[in-house]
């Protein structure tokens, strides 16, 4: 929706090219672009002003005017300052010396506290802790039920003596929960509280009462990464009201630039510990300041893409597929699932658009018919399970029926089958370590595989390095590219 900062700055830089030295006016022009970009990313205005002020100071100093490429040096400064404010080195969750560690969550309505509570509990459980979830949101209809259901899914006990919906005293619940945790030796207690607006005194008092009683080791402020300018007053209200020791950002799987992160980090000075990136309960990550900085500056598209791909083709899945291919068990059913995973990432054109320097390729892509994927999917979906698993049973009359069922022609069915057989062969040879044949259609996942290829290269970019170490895998053996969808 917005021009990326990099494309806007490259315009500005064009006029600066050849200049060995930046004047104050040049710097101001660059800073105006940065200001606009930050505002479009929803960084609060006052935070932007202070930020630009400090950048200006550094930019006017020696380090820029003596730099080889002064304009880019400015972006470098902006990026490093952003990373610094977002929490140079993120600290880890603080645990109590004598258990139970008490973690209290607070935040606005709809920021995602209850879901986050469950995600955190799951994470801690994996870390060999024995968490107890406590349902202190007795306000929102069925918030208690929601926590119970989530608790069940991750097999973490939920303490919920009241059914909620306005009934019960949350302070009392918190008190009993701590006693229960001590009695039953839970190592961590996670207290979910009711959402409140920053201006609701009564609800804020309730949060304060709970806090005073449970004396939390961490008071995590949960905020929606889509929050706008109001992030400042919300963060202030919570900090002055109940106080906070750390921040968790939610809904980062959306397309928001997430400027609220910078606003909240600046205003509260509290570290951002977690980012929450999806609806499934394992979608929680340790916060990466560098990635967030790139995202706010709208330069992090590549990383986002990698993450998206990683999520779509999760490692285990990829491994399973690779094994199937190697043992000649890759079926049309698997292929269908792969297609659906690709579709999850959005349109191919959209994916290509996210990659820098892909402009030219994108033009070629414009001729690519996205509907082809739908048609392929329709053909496979018109097959019986037997046909999907053993394509060789597909005789003439079956093919006629499939063509009819999918609204395509027998020729199209035949073409798909041909491509499937060819690709199966190619993939098999690749899975066995054979040479990589030229792909008929350069699908983007190939590019994504790059960081993996460079494994061991230890990229200078810490985010890239992290991505590498996480083993971002897109198996080149996967069928996506070999099926010639574009043909």
């Amino acid at each position, binding site marked *: *929706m*917005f021009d990326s900062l990099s494309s806007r700055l490259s315009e500005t830089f064009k006029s600066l090219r050849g200049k060995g030295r930046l004047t104050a006016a040049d710097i101001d022009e660059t800073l105006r672009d940065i200001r*606009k970009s930050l*505002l*479009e*990313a*929803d960084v*609060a*205005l*006052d935070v932007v002003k202070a930020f630009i002020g400090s950048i200006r100071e550094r930019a006017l100093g020696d380090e820029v005017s003596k730099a080889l490429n002064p304009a880019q040096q400015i972006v470098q400064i902006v990026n490093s300052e952003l990373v610094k404010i977002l929490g140079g080195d993120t600290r880890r969750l603080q645990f109590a010396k004598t258990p139970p560690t008490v973690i209290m969550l607070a935040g*606005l*309505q*709809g*920021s*995602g506290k209850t879901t986050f509570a469950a995600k955190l509990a799951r994470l801690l459980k994996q870390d060999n802790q024995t968490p107890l979830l406590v349902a202190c949101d007795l*306000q*929102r*209809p*069925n*918030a208690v*039920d*929601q926590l*119970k*259901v*989530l608790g069940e*899914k991750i097999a973490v006990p939920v303490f919920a003596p009241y059914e909620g*919906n306005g009934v019960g005293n949350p302070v009392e619940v918190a008190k009993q929960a701590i006693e229960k945790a001590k009695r039953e030796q839970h190592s961590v207690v996670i207290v979910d509280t009711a959402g409140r*607006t*920053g*201006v609701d005194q009564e609800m804020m008092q309730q949060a304060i009462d709970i806090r005073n009683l449970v004396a939390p080791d961490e008071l995590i402020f949960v905020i*929606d990464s*889509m*929050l*706008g*300018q*109001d*992030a400042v*007053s*919300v963060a202030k*209200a919570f900090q002055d009201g109940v106080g906070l020791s750390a921040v968790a950002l939610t*809904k980062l*799987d*959306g*397309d*928001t*630039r997430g*400027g*609220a992160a910078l606003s909240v980090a600046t205003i509260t000075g509290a570290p951002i510990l977690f980012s929450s990136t999806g*609806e499934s309960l394992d979608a929680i990550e340790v916060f990466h300041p560098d990635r967030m900085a790139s995202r706010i500056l709208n330069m992090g598209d590549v990383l986002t893409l990698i993450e998206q791909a990683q999520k779509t083709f999760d490692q285990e899945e990829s491994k399973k597929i690779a094994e199937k291919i190697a043992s000649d068990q890759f079926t049309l059913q698997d292929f269908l699932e792969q297609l*659906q995973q690709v*579709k*999850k*990432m*959005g*349109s191919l054109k*959209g994916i290509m658009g996210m990659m820098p320097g892909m402009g030219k390729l994108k033009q070629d892509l414009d001729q690519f018919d996205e509907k082809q994927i739908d048609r392929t999917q329709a053909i496979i979906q018109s097959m019986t399970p037997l046909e999907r698993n053993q394509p060789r049973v597909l005789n003439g009359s079956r093919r006629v029926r499939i063509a009819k069922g999918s609204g395509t022609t027998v020729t199209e069915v035949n073409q798909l089958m041909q491509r499937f057989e060819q690709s199966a062969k190619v993939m098999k040879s690749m899975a066995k370590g054979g040479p990589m044949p030229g792909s008929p259609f350069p699908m983007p996942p190939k590019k994504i595989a790059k960081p993996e290829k460079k494994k061991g290269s230890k990229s200078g970019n810490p985010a890239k390095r992290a991505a590498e170490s996480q083993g971002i895998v897109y198996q080149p053996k996967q069928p996506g590219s070999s099926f010639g969808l574009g043909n």
Partner: protein
Amino acid sequence: MFSFLRKSRNSEQAEAVELPTRTITSAIRSLFPKKIELEELEDILIRADFGIEASEEITKELRQQASKLGITEDSQLRVLLRDLLSIKLTRADSELNLKSETFPYVFLVVGVNGVGKTTTIGKLAKWLTDGKWKVVIGAADTFRAAAVEQLATWADRAGAELVRPQTEGQDPASVAYQTVERAIVDQADIAIIDTAGRLQNKQDLMDELNKITRSIQKQASVSEVLLVLDATMGQNALSQAKSFAEAASVTGVVLTKLDGSAKGGIAYAIQQQLGIPIKLVGVGEGENDFAFFSPKDFATGLVAS
């Protein structure tokens, strides 16, 4: 204040239901607790989430008008700005589509996670049942844990019928279909269908909305597709509105959580840039805490001294 004079299909008499006196004027916090300073207007609008472009545009226009009319006094500037905002926000199509006389009306409610879809439906249903309307609510949010229960609580409060998914994780399109079916069989006036929250960049989930719409259209036409937006959100709300408009042909926006400290300036950009009317606003958690969007009230609240 909005009077509701639409006759329920089952009642002899037209029922006039008036919305609770709560207007948004009192809920919205003024942009100018002190004096209006023209120099600071742009910054103040940006802080209220109007976005850079709109803030610049409004500031420029107000300056021009003020100098043309020779206005410098604070109270006059407030009136000038109020009228400017109010005129820009006024549209012919900002009323709910409850006039077509083809029963049942079908409302589909969509939006990202946590914006207040379920609460909005509860309030809307309560208001309609107060007007002696027969309301069927469809729980097509089959994804979020306990979403159906949350909706059931609201349906109870409103005295509306609830169509639940029959199995866990049932296809939302089929729940939508069954909801409309029930509304037709029971001669209800309106079916309101809740959907799971979805982020606008999840293409497969956005496609699902299209499927839900088609399943409704097998039996009835869709009267409103209401996109619920959270007033505390920033510029991303524009991206949301754009994507949902493309995927689900949104006919109106519900702006929730205006009772907090957020001003909801993004509503302005959405109407201006995308041409989608704001129809309802939510101003609290109570069942009566909502109002029809009135540009004049909204503008009056923003410039109140």
